């Protein structure tokens, strides 16, 4: 017998409000319907009513967690349209902020993933070492989030040389702790049993659905804008692309963990080799034409397309966030797994916990599961596995 388990309209584990309709047979999920649009704010409509510089601040508000990635892709698009090359120092500054943001975003995910499978220790520890990073952001840019570092033709702020040691000190700490997390998480048999072979997205599906970022790289689909289409300082530093073949939740977690190490590597090299000089150029007008900007955000490639008619406002501005492509792939990734796994699989793409309490499951008009119950289901499964290993 088929039943419907609705999750949403505020998804428990994901940032955006979205509605997942799990179609289940007993415990097994057989199909998934996705409904989004609860948070449609019409950025593409507002953007042509603002000037080129104002749009940078508008797109910064698209995402709260990776608030650097959209303005980054946007300024790259406008620079592509106007054929402007930012000064070298600005390129390094942008790269450093982009990478620091990746670390903070991956740590946010890691902490939440730990919470969902009942490892609250992971959650607490990971977030403890994420906190000093937000202080670094505040130190450099005055804000813990919404950094406003990007500007058409450069960066809005400089990273002062006296702040370098503070960043490096944090990176030293983080490198040690990241190695500890990687070891703790990958060596734990219970976590392995809980995450391995869950929510497998095959490489064929990954290509067909056009998924991006860690979701793609966890499925052996090795795409990374920083390597494929290097921009700013990414081709001037030495780093490796991380990818795994398995396609399950564990592979996605591994990609994110090891990617943090690569990010540390990139930031260190950038700090060491950052040239002196101006960090912005003056861009007076944007000639008619079109431009494309792509930036590898923590969740995948952010794509911005702008068209100019030579005036002070864009004619058309297209924004494509990575989740737009990644969420659709849940339809194939979640099929055949239990409800306890589904919460985790849906979160493997990208999570946020702000709205869990709004998750209700109705059967015949009667409330059955709340968000807490979903978590409990997941925790119980982990506990079962844990007990099995104890024996």
């Amino acid at each position, binding site marked *: 017998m088929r039943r419907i388990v609705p999750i949403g309209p505020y998804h428990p584990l994901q940032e955006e409000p979205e509605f997942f309709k799990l179609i289940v047979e007993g415990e097994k999920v057989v199909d998934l319907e996705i409904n989004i*649009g609860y948070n*449609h704010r019409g950025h593409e409509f507002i953007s042509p009513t603002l000037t080129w510089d104002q749009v940078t601040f508008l797109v910064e508000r698209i995402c709260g967690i990776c608030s650097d990635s959209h303005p980054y892709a946007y300024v790259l698009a406008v620079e592509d349209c106007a054929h402007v090359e930012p000064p070298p120092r600005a390129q390094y500054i942008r790269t450093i902020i982009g990478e620091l943001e990746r670390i903070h975003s991956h740590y946010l995910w890691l902490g939440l993933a730990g919470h969902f499978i009942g490892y609250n220790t992971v959650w607490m520890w990971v977030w403890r070492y994420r906190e000093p990073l937000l202080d670094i952001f505040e130190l450099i840019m005055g804000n813990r989030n919404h950094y406003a570092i990007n500007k058409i033709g450069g960066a809005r702020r400089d990273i002062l040389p006296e702040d370098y040691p503070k960043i490096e000190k944090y990176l030293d700490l983080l490198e040690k702790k990241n190695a500890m997390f990687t070891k703790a998480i990958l060596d734990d048999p219970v976590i392995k049993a809980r995450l391995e072979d869950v929510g497998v997205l095959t490489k064929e599906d990954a*290509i067909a659905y056009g998924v991006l970022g860690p979701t793609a790289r966890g499925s052996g689909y090795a795409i990374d804008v920083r390597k494929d289409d290097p921009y700013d300082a990414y081709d001037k530093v030495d780093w490796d692309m991380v990818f795994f073949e398995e396609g399950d939740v564990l592979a996605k977690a591994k990609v994110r963990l090891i990617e943090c190490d690569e990010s540390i590597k990139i930031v260190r090299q950038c700090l060491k080799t950052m040239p002196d000089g101006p960090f912005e150029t003056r861009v007076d007008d944007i000639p008619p034409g079109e*431009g494309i900007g792509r930036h590898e955000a923590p969740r995948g490639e952010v*794509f911005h*397309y702008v068209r100019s008619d030579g005036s002070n406002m864009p004619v058309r501005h*297209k924004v494509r966030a990575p989740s737009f492509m990644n969420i659709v792939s849940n339809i194939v990734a979640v099929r055949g797994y239990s409800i306890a796994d589904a919460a985790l699989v849906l979160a493997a793409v990208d999570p946020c916990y702000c709205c869990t309490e709004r998750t209700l499951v109705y059967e015949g008009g009667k409330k059955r599961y709340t968000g807490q119950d979903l978590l409990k289901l997941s925790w119980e499964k982990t506990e079962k596995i844990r007990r099995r290993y104890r024996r």
Partner: protein
Amino acid sequence: MKKGYSKKILEEISAKFPEVSVKIHSPRRTYIRISREKVYDFAKYLFEEKGFRLSIATGIDTRDGVEIIYHFSHDEAGTYYNIKTVIPKDDLKIRSLALLLPAANWIEREMHELLGIDFIGHPNLIPLLTAETWPADLHPLRRDYANEHKDIKTKKKP
């Protein structure tokens, strides 16, 4: 890994589809103009034979009609091939790519509701982003909508 646009790929494209016009904006950004009837075959060729990834499609309401740009990414070379086609405003129809490329499913649903383009052969062409109560004949990214709702900002003020 070879970087930048490849002359070979462009030669192959123009040998197979002689009617296309190619404009190279920068080494990694190429714009290709093609007629509406050929888009499906061209997309099929790029996806199945060349292994390009459909990144996104942009719809733009212009003076000559509604323009659709399919942004295809060639990840090995880091190049974007942007397939442009213009469809007249009195006949907003084009063949859907959704069955060929699952990635096009949501992309086309979004364009359908925001620009009113009819994708023939799409399995489930229902609104994606707009509210359930939003009128089906109102397309927010069309010029006429923008002109009618110019004062949308001032209206909000109490």
